[in-house]
């Protein structure tokens, strides 16, 4: 059984996001493998280590050249090989799912792991759209996963709480915090990763044009009042705050 794990490269959470014209400019910004995708890579490794019949773990990224770094990180964590569909074109999640589904078919993957909501496009659509294109079921926001034979069991979050589930492969699983603690690549593994296969692929062969046109972006920082009260006298500070909330903001009664 092969696992395909999807990787996006996003700005580090603490990095400043800058605009150039009306588009996001990531030049000079620290970029990392998306945290939620990292849980996916780690989970693939853990499924293999748990004795599930995992023959191969393939890391896939679709995006600009710098994505190679994120793929090398996945390889250093323990993925077996990587595929990089290199493109500077901006695809929406539903259009991108076409590439992922095609690759899953040609690679004969039976399980796809992808982050639940990545930190660049704030979208939850990639896993679901990929599952639909393949005609597979999906488990989103998963925080516990087991694989025995072709049977998946686990737990995932839903609107108001969580559910335990059972499903049979093939399936798409979206990953998140709580699923595991991703490992750090060790130096020997980073060295080994340099020799692992990182195959380049061409977006043109996938017929995946974006259906959503990007018009512009703005960094909107809403002006906040920043009225800061000294809390040395708790009673006075509390009374002042309640007064502001009642009479100035008018948000409480």
């Amino acid at each position: 059984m092969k696992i395909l794990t999807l990787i996006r490269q996003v700005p580090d959470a603490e990095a400043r996001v800058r605009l150039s014209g009306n588009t996001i400019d990531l030049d000079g910004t620290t970029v990392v493998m998306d945290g939620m995708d990292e849980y996916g890579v780690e989970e693939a490794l853990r499924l293999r280590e748990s004795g599930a019949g995992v023959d191969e773990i393939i890391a896939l990224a679709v995006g600009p050249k710098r994505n190679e770094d994120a793929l090398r990180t996945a390889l250093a964590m323990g993925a077996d090989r990587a595929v990089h569909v290199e493109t500077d074109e901006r695809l929406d999640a539903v259009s991108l799912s076409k590439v992922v589904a095609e690759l899953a078919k040609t690679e004969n993957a039976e399980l796809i792991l992808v982050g639940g909501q990545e930190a660049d496009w704030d979208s939850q659509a990639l896993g679901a759209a990929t599952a639909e294109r393949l005609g597979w079921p999906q488990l989103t926001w998963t925080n516990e996963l087991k694989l025995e034979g072709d049977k998946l069991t686990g737990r995932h979050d839903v609107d108001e709480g969580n559910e335990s589930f059972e499903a049979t492969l093939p399936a798409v699983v979206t990953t998140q915090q709580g699923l595991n603690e991703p490992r750090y690549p060790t130096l020997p593994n980073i060295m080994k990763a340099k020799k692992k296969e990182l195959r380049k692929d061409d977006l043109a062969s996938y017929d995946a044009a974006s259906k959503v046109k990007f018009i512009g972006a703005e960094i909107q920082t809403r002006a906040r009042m920043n009225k800061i009260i000294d809390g040395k006298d708790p009673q006075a500070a509390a009374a002042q705050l309640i007064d502001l909330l009642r009479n100035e903001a008018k948000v409480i009664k």
Partner: protein
Amino acid sequence: MILIVAEHADGKLAKATLEMVTAARGTGREGPITILVLGQNVAGVASEAAAVADQVLVADSASLAQYSAETWAAAVAQIAQEGEAHTVITPGSRSGREYAPRVAVKLDAPYLEDVISLSSSGAGLQAQRYTYLARVTETVEAQGAVTVISAKPGSFAPAAPAAAAGEQYDVDLDLPQSRVTITGKSMEKSSRVALSEADVIVTGGRGVGNAENFSKFVEPLADNLGAGVGATRAVVDAGWRPYAEQVGQTGKTVQPKAYIALGVSGAVQHLSGMGKSKFIVAINKDAEAPIFKVADYGIVGDVNEIVPALIEASKR
């Protein structure tokens, strides 16, 4: 027609459904506003929906008792095709954002996800949505005859009832069996107002100290203010509060009138879940905490001293 998929729970229509009606009216697109109600024993929900829509389609069946992305996507796509919907709007809840992409693939339509505004453009629909952990507002445009949309909760005003109640029609659907079996459920029901519907939210972070302090400080303050209780990821990870209360990238996104953050430092992942609140109040003993940068009102002080005083002051 514009097809809206109703969100409902416990036999009641959720506010999100009324918000979607406003979103639909704002598109300026022609055709009746149609609400699709999926579930079992949903007659009450359907008549609530009829008050705001031109028509309501009701699929009431045992096979819809349990939500499933595959089943919901098939139902919505089937109705959209038969009714020749040009616009399909789903809630921006976890479930809505789970089946909407499948609908988009089935209809070969563009998908505008978690939108905060909608307007018609020459060729299609334009929408705004947040990206980069809600630090950026993007404008995107969907081109094509059919568009699938999910509407971010709290972004559109709830619609007022229409002049006349819409007609209700029962529909029969040919639904696939979900290939996911749900073997257990743990619904974290709170007696307090749900975070998605709350006007005021009181959230505790690490600075609250421990789980007991939540019952001692955070909950009484929330009760005095008629507020919902929220928690940060660190607090949920520590097991002090249930996941259902978590606000942030991996939890809920909220947009109340007032967000009161107690002992919350303000990591970017947390801000992405609450940064759009109308008023933000921060109480933290660390004057350098990033939360103060986004606060309208703040008190630099110890939560354990300030909150009891707030509980007293809010009684009057």
